């Protein structure tokens, strides 16, 4: 029986740390990406992460790098998942029902996409509230 490749979701903090060599987590991010490539993971991200990363790169590193990022991500096997209308309805209801928890829109959107794709782990250097049964990958926590 062929063992399917593991799936993982990537947050903007990892992209930024990988590209920006002055980032405190740059070395960690480089090691993680190298591991993902060698272990032949299926890598996913969301359109929200993509837009946010692009904007941050454009603002902090300049347009050349941001365009290079755009080109690389288009050529890459990293799959960008776009939330559908049903996802937005779910996100709205979730945020309305959990107003006191201060959950960000992008976090719940990413968690929703992960849930849909049956991805349980995320790679992020930011705080993650383990939404919808998801958790931060031990590739980050073990380092």
């Amino acid at each position: 029986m062929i063992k399917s490749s593991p799936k993982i979701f990537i947050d903007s903090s990892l992209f930024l740390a990988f590209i920006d060599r002055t980032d405190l987590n740059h070395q960690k991010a480089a090691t993680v990406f190298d591991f993902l490539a060698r272990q032949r993971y299926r890598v996913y991200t969301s359109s929200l992460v993509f837009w946010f990363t692009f904007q941050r790169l454009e603002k902090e590193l300049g347009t050349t790098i941001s365009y290079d990022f755009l080109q690389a991500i288009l050529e890459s096997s990293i799959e960008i998942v776009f939330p559908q209308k049903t996802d937005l309805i779910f996100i709205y209801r979730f945020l309305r029902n959990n107003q006191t928890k201060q959950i960000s829109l992008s976090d719940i959107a990413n968690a929703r996409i992960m849930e849909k794709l049956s991805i349980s782990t995320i790679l992020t250097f930011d705080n993650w509230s383990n939404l919808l049964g998801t958790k931060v990958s031990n590739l980050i926590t073990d380092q």
Partner: protein
Amino acid sequence: MAEDKLHTVNQVAILLKVHPLTVRRYIKEGKLKAVRIIGNIRIPQTSLDNFTQDIFPTFYGIKKEHQVLKDQGPLFTIYDPFLRLKGRGLSLKPLKF
């Protein structure tokens, strides 16, 4: 209605790509409105239009292919173009002392 084109069961079966018995079942279940003309079943064009309006064809082949892609999407390898971006940027964050 006077100019409404009428189809036989077999003609509708060919149009819908189903067996004539399936068309008869649709008529029996009331899903497809039909008329009897001296004992013969005829389906008006408007009835057929109303019936097909509510149907969204499911492309099984495409769905299956999509499912395969979803489950066996492209693999991230050491040759991935994204890896070219490693350490390309140098942000000018203010230094903290």
